[in-house]
């Protein structure tokens, strides 16, 4: 909510975008964060706020198939884009993450899963980057990261 703290709204913008495959048409304050639109207006609270300044990655979503911190994105900027949130990740795929201990308190977890899911779908990035480097945008304070890294490795399959 920080972006709208300074002054009352001047006007709203009407925008359309795709959210988890569904068409959304919504009026937004130009300073409204995508994170708040998702959580408080579109009833998708699976995306979490950890820091509100793009450091922790708890609010990770994908925009046109690229991971982004939704706390740093004004909602109007996703006009015409395809946005995907944690709610779009199939539950049935997450067994390996659970077994490895990838979640403890769970507050960072949706962001972790979004990044991991993106890596899984773009596994060629592992040819030039380590998994630990690719996951470094998602801060976790509970696991020490081994549970996450092992979980993603098992989920992706194959050695890393």
């Amino acid at each position, binding site marked *: *909510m*920080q972006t*709208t*703290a*300074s002054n*009352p709204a001047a006007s709203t913008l009407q925008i359309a975008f795709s959210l988890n495959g569904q068409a959304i048409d919504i009026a937004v304050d130009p300073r409204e964060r995508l994170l708040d639109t998702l*959580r408080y207006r579109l*009833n998708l*609270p*699976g*995306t*979490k*706020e*950890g*820091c*509100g*300044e793009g*450091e*922790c990655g*708890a609010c990770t979503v994908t925009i046109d198939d690229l991971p982004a911190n939704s706390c740093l994105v004004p909602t109007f900027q996703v006009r015409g884009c395809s946005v995907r*949130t*944690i*709610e779009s*990740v199939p*539950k049935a795929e*997450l067994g390996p*993450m*659970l*077994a*490895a*201990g*990838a*979640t*403890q*308190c*769970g*507050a*960072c*977890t*949706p962001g972790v*899963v979004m990044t991991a899911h993106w890596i899984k779908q773009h596994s060629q990035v592992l040819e030039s980057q*380590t*998994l*630990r*480097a690719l*996951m*470094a*945008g*998602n*801060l*976790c*304070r*509970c*696991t*020490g*990261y*081994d*549970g*996450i*890294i092992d979980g993603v490795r098992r989920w992706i399959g194959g050695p890393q």
Partner: protein
Amino acid sequence: MQRLEGLSKLTGAERYLDDEPLEGPLKGCLWGMTVRSPVSRGKITRITYGAGFDWSQFVVVEPSDIPGPNETYLIENDQPVLAPGYVRHMHEAVVLIAHQDRNLLRRAVASVRVDVAPEPPALDFRLTPRPDQIQRGSDNLLKKLQIRKGNIERGFAQAHKIVEGEYETGAQEHVYIEPNAMSAWIEDGPTGDVVVVRGSMQCPYYVLNALKHALKRDESRVRVIQSPTGGGFGGKEDYPSTIALHCALLTLKARRPVKIVYDRSEDMAATTKRHPSLVRHRTAVDQNGKMLAQHIEVILDGGAYVTLSPVVLSRGIIHAAGPYTCENVLIEGKAVLTNSVPYGAFRGFGAPQTIFAVERHMDRIAAALNLDPLQVRRVNLLKDGDTTSTQQVIKGGTDRHALLDQTLHIANYDAHKREAEKFNRTHPYLRRGVGVATVLHGAGFTGNGEVYLNSKVDVAGRPDGSLEVLAASTEMGQGTNTVFTKIAADAAGYDIADVFVGTPDTFRVPNSGPTVASRTVMVVGKLVERAIDELARQVGQNGSPLRGPALKSAIQAWHRANPESELKGRATYQPPPDVKFDDKNYIGDAYATFAWGVCVAAVEVDLRTAAVRVLDFVAAQDIGKVINPVLATGQVQGGVVQAIGWALTEEMKFKDGGMHNNTLTNYIIPTSDDVPSIRVHFHENPYPHGGGGAKGVGELPMDGPAPAILNAVAHATGADPRAIPLTPERLLPLLR
């Protein structure tokens, strides 16, 4: 057994407080926010509510709105709920404001000006305060404690050498990923209205006691419920009492539900931190490194109010001599008032600070005697039958010497050492080294604390024969619910599908004590087992305790015979036999048992930048019986990485006594790319008085990494670092 709520966390379905729709009891909810002090100390002269707002549309709470004493109930009750005309630290709560529009509220709160006539703050706990900085007694001391064993003068008289050292540790912020959040509303009850508080917390009964005290209500008219909690690490031990009181006061004044959710910067600035410390060692040793006398001074920065500092200091001094035995010991501890945010509970609770000092000091003793640091540890390490600084006789059958040797083997210590020395001869600017720390952690409350707590657990037998564990112990990520389910299922001979763990709700669960001090599995887990025994006795014939399907049928039969009745077995804490502590003189069994650990760190230091990287880390732990290997391993790995952050990067910067870097951009916790895989080894030695044979695991992992890493940096570079966080700025001058 897999984490019970794991899939709902992985899919984002878990609902933390800020995720919940404003429906049900939260229908018509207002948002609450806090106006805070702009300075460290002084008298409030004026509060100005900004122009341009219709203040009749806001709910404003000032100290005069507090029904009972303006005190946060804890050890000394010296911390006000709202600053009573006088502030003692930056960001102290002054006024509370609520409104339905969260954005408008933010602007309104920002418009409030608090004028303070400043007085000289005490900001450095290491310095003797000037007369105009004295705010408590004659010396600003919050607490003074001492441990005395033998006669240190005798030891110093026999010394081959005396080794001295001063060690410092900094404040640490918890950075639970879910910031503090609380909601409150009013319900009707049989004896009047009931203030219900629901939120993120570790200790529902701490919150309950705080509400009873300041709201002047008995427990029938205050109710505390835990919401899913996204991490705690001690940061949600005492602070939730404050935010719960704020929320309750707003809801009482507004007669509407209120929710307060901190953003990260407010959470970092206004909530508790780990106590900064200064520890001085003066040690008499013989030629072999055997300690003949230990004189240790421990000074903690307590911050502006007493809060938990006396007990943090207590645990700190009891751990200050390390896992060693010495005939002559004098440990003098004090916690000092400063005008900073009150320091509070943080994983380890004083022990990581003093263990950092003693474990770094052991390596410096070795260096002074030109001995191997491992030899100095071996000649002093506690064996069963030896006594600690409080004269506690160590028993339990853990061979700490074997644990050390085994850990060195797992860690490839000798190879690391050889390779590092070879590497350092040839590399132009990188230096590698390896360091060790041997540690202990007292499990459960200190001294007679568990006896005073007198914890209780109920296990309910439900009409369908299933069991429900009713305890105030909270799940905050560490796995309480999963482990209690497993302990209860094993004790009852049940399938885990027939065991449930109730939500901590003070109207439903008895006080099983706070979720702190590595006590949940060991102490409360044992009560779960005993409550099941009690339940089984109630439904058994001839008093024989039933198990498995027979127990289930008996519970079902009991309910058929007693319709509409509740069936519960209750257990109340009983100390293990022969555990005795004199808490006046600090003599005796400071803890019913200790967990033991050995850490080995391999590091690389870049001489150009003075950056330290941990290359390999092994943590071996004796935590009794491991109940759930995935969860226990995760506790150790998470604790080690949190300690790596404390050791190397997590620096709290102050400006005028307040946290200046209160953002995750400037307060640097480790990422996945900053740390290696943490290799964990468990040495299992079941503890008969712990739930499922377990001892505490939560805090031990925090104790060893910082000294092991600094010992490794010393080995790598020849430098003598004695303060953490060992940032490049702090290390560079030591590299010459």
